[in-house]
């Protein structure tokens, strides 16, 4: 019996550890409130605005001490946010809609990009010109992503899905290979390797999801002022990053992610600017804006193709009250 005790205590420790998760907002010694943003990938230009807000001191101005936790293939941002291990996460609106329909207590508090940079990368020689042409093809993508399931249903196509390995070698080796990409990202390497590739932007499929910042319902209810402050400072950071100068933020990015090269960051920023991914369009800067009508359209589309079983209210999933007043003023009903 003696040697069974350590095992029991191990289990109890594990239980206590699990229960200990979820911390409260407390001011640190500096008087700033510490919050953590979990990104989906290693530091890159697609997170530039957040790093800009850090180096320009925008978070400090509103009383926040923001830690940016770099993601990667196993970032698990959603799990970390709903279990309140971190305060904020980023992701695609469609995935958030599906998670919310599964009763996960999360809400979208701001747009990060008006148009998601996700696309399919195909070789010029592949003969693929539209989403219909993808039928039966081998496509390297995230299995189970709402966006992929939407495309299959919308165009009545069936993809032979291969899990994303985040490499480029197989694409370069096979002209019939198709893979999920960011238009701000992979095309740069393809060009460098001398291959001819083009992209099919998901936003052009009739489904144009936001890229968003989300938090857990519980945290937002308890600390609305922190959420507002984080959103306002992040939007300020993004506007400043896109307008430039952005040398200091980029220096921080390359310092955190040592494989990142300045010319690659410039390429990504240019792609974001060219496609108005962050601001939305040329005429008006909509950085951060969530239009409830567009959000509702995204929800209804996913409902129509059967990805979510119950209709959902956009304003409940993505309340606009955390957005700064000047952004809220752009909401059209």
């Amino acid at each position, binding site marked *: 019996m003696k040697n069974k005790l350590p095992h029991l205590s191990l*289990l109890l420790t*594990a*239980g206590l550890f*699990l*229960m200990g*998760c*979820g911390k409260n907002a407390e001011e640190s010694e500096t008087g700033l409130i510490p919050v953590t943003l979990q990104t989906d990938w290693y530091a890159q230009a697609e997170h530039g605005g957040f790093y800009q807000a850090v180096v320009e001191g925008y978070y400090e101005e509103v009383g926040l001490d923001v830690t940016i936790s770099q993601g990667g293939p196993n970032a698990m941002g*959603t*799990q970390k946010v*709903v*279990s*309140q291990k971190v305060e904020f996460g980023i992701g695609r609106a469609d995935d958030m809609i*599906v*998670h919310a329909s*599964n*009763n*996960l*207590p999360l809400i979208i508090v701001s747009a990060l990009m008006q148009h998601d940079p996700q696309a399919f990368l195909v070789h010029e020689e592949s003969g693929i010109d539209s989403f219909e042409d993808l039928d039966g093809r*081998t496509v390297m993508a*995230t*299995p*189970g*992503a709402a966006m992929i399931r939407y495309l299959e249903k919308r165009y009545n196509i069936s*993809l*032979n*899905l*291969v*899990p994303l*390995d985040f*490499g480029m*070698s*197989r694409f370069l*080796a096979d002209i019939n290979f198709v893979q999920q990409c960011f238009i701000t990202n992979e095309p740069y390497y393809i060009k460098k390797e001398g291959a001819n590739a083009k992209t099919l932007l998901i936003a052009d499929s009739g489904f144009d999801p936001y890229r968003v910042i989300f938090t857990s319902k*519980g945290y937002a209810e308890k600390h609305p002022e922190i959420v507002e402050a984080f959103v306002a400072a992040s939007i300020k950071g993004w506007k400043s990053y896109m307008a430039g100068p952005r040398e200091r933020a980029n220096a921080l990015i390359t310092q955190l992610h040592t494989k990142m090269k300045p010319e690659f960051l410039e390429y990504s920023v240019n792609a974001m600017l060219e496609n108005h991914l962050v601001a939305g369009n040329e005429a008006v800067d909509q950085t951060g804006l969530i239009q409830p009508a567009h959000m509702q359209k995204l929800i209804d589309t996913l409902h129509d193709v059967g990805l979510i079983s119950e209709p959902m209210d956009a304003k409940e999933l993505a309340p606009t009250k955390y957005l700064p007043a000047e952004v809220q003023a752009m909401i059209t009903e």
Partner: protein
Amino acid sequence: MATTSKKIQSALLPIASGIIILAIWNLISYLYGRSVGYDVQRIIIPFPHQIATALWSEREALWLSTRQTALSAVIGFIAAVTVGYILSMLLASAVWVKKALYPWILVLQMTPVVVLAPIFVLWMGQGLPSITAITFMIGFFPVVANTTMGLVSTDRNLLDLFEMSNASKAQEIMYLRVPFAMPYFLTGMKIAGTLAPIGAIAGDLFAGSSQGGVGGIGYMVILYNSQLKIPELFATALVACMLGFVFVGCVNWLHWYLLKDWHESARKTDNT
């Protein structure tokens, strides 16, 4: 009579400990759910009954993916055993062959298969060939190591006996060395059998695809994880564990069947 009560005891003990483990699990899930909400608890540490429900509702997909993984495991296992055996014969045929080749087989074995996996996929594409190649890589070495050991450690006295009887080299190998090495070979085969399902699942993680509706077990792991279907992920773990038991059970039976009529290890006990 004492043996009967002992038998009952040995059957009851694992059941009792299983109930205790389930109770502790339930308690942890309950306490965690109470602190963060049960919708979050479901995707972090689901209740056992939620896993059972997931297992039932996903039974079709899990059955198909298990079949696919089992197929890769069987092919990879047969390849590992066959190639491993042939290689051992070669290594044992002459001392210089072993000296020349064995270090390189070791090099191959020491290279982690997770590093080789992306290379296999690049060469052979997504699917069965790559998955079985990964399974083979994990399983063939124990066969080679054990069988070679068996082939070169034949009893000196028996070798002398064969020599005195003027047996040819071929006769010595066929009638002495090979039968003598059989238990060694079968031990290697047993180890390869426990590794094959693991290899097939690892292979599927790297080289699986949704071809034919569902992928293998490794693919389902990626799929469920990206959809945050965590009870389903636990159910997949359960299914993978059962596949491992069935596979090892079959290999152990084969081991016993091949040895039962003549080898001490199989004759002494009524099961393995």
